[in-house]
């Protein structure tokens, strides 16, 4: 379990993380979401003791990270997958990490097998593809078999089969009762992986909720209706719905659900040629929610 309390980081005038309070719980995959520059990485760096908070605390199972006696047995982290000396072999990179925490040498071989890098373990890490580097970083995080795992953008650079592999791994790790935090700036990644979401924008907490709750609360559900003959829009409006009429004859209905639309059609004797509930995707909700807090945006697209 990771607990952030009032965590704040300022770099001069810029506030990267702003009074962030939240808890990452065990047994679930928590998606840590935010646009680029939202403060996800800075939050992770402070949690790992690599950067000093301006204010507030980050605790792992009730202790500061630097007070953990054997850190790699408590927390495994993947930060930047490319942060490996290019001419050191993957195996030696992992061996140095393992030895520094007094972990047995056999763990190196075990995690290399687990991530599928055993065949290239003796090659220089600089020759690895981005996907292989991600696997090496994940191997490093798993060395100490820790109950808490932090992954910063772990699927970056992975091919579809790699992405599927990471998703399965995350879910398996959480199912074993571990705390799994996965940061991403892509909401779509999280729809299939995360159980819980912590969303930040400009360093501030925007949402801390279950994935289902997030969708239910935040997404506006619309119903797309196409009716034979005119006048149905007024019928819907009379029933309290908000209707947007398109030139193509499409009606976008909000305020009442598809069942109510169907009942109104039956009552008024209207033939519906199309009736489709439309739920905004997680991506759309996320975009709408973080629109004001996007650090850099192309002016026209807003």
């Amino acid at each position, binding site marked *: 379990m990771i607990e952030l309390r009032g965590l704040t980081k300022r770099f001069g005038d810029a506030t990267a993380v702003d009074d962030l309070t939240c808890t990452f719980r065990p047994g679930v995959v928590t998606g840590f979401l935010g646009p680029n520059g939202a403060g996800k990485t800075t939050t992770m*760096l402070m949690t790992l003791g690599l950067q000093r908070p301006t204010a507030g605390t980050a605790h792992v199972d009730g202790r500061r990270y630097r007070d953990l006696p054997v*850190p790699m047995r408590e927390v495994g982290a993947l*930060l930047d997958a*490319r942060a*490996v*000396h290019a*001419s050191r072999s993957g195996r030696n990179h992992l061996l*140095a990490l393992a030895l*520094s925490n007094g972990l047995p040498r056999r763990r190196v071989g075990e995690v290399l097998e687990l991530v599928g890098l055993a065949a290239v373990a003796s090659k220089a890490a600089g020759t690895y593809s981005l996907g292989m580097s991600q696997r090496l970083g994940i191997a490093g995080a798993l060395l100490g078999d820790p109950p808490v795992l932090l992954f910063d953008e772990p699927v970056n650079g992975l091919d579809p089969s790699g992405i599927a592999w990471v998703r399965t791994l995350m879910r398996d790790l959480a199912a074993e009762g571990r705390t799994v935090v996965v940061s991403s700036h892509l909401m779509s990644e999280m729809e299939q992986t995360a159980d819980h979401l912590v969303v930040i924008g400009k360093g501030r907490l925007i949402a801390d909720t279950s994935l289902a709750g997030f969708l239910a609360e935040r997404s506006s559900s619309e119903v797309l209706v196409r009716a034979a003959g005119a006048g149905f829009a007024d019928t819907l409006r009379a029933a309290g719905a908000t209707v947007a009429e398109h030139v193509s004859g499409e009606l976008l209905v909000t305020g009442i659900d598809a069942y109510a639309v169907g009942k109104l059609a039956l009552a008024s004797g209207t033939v519906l040629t199309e009736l489709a509930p439309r739920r905004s995707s997680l991506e759309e909700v996320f975009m709408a929610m973080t629109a004001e807090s996007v650090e850099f945006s192309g002016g026209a697209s807003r």
Partner: protein
Amino acid sequence: MSVVRAEWVKFRSLRSVLWTAGTVLVLMAGLGALFSFGRAHELAVEGTAADRAAFDPTAASLSGLLFAQIAVGVLGVLAVSSEFASGSIRPSLAAVPVRGRLLAAKAATVTAVALVIGWAGGLAAFLLGQAIISGQGLASASLGDGGVVRALLGTGLYLTAIALFGLAVGAMIRSTAGALTIVIVVMLLFPIFSAALPSGLARWIAKWWPSMAGIRVVTTTPDPAVLGPWAGFAVLAAFGAIVLAASFAVFGRRDI
């Protein structure tokens, strides 16, 4: 101790670092042999009796030290700066969050390496050089001569001090190029150019500048104008200790 073992793995797993370490040995023995031959041959062919009497065979055979110290300074700098350059400093410090412990383990590794190659290189240079000098028909030095054993111990100590200075500067500056520039200017270039300064200042610098005072520990000829072997080395060691302490303070607090 486990952190030192980890640092040793990092050290031995980089070919560039092993090459640098090998270069120190070659510079010490090879340049020592070359200088010994050149100087001894010159004296044998055209030297006067006074020239030959003033010849210091120990110093001639150890003259590769001036160049070896640059390579050793590079080793010290790279021990930290290569981690910043590659970004591996983050996983390293996530694994060892007590920063002083990581830097101390790096210092221990660098010390062990510099001592061993300094002693091995110094002994090889001395034995090779003396064989060459006596081959030219000049009086050579032997291990039993006054101060020779101390001078040979001194090669390892002097190079260790330079390596730790490099490590400390690397930990503070973080960039390899910047740290190397500082090490070379402070340890090598400034002492050379100080000769051009007004003579009073130049004499003071020759006596007290850390690298110039420190190198007295590898000399066997007393010189009243400068410090004695151990006093001189103490100046270098004290300077190194201050810079190293500063690097622990900076490295311990900084956002990585």
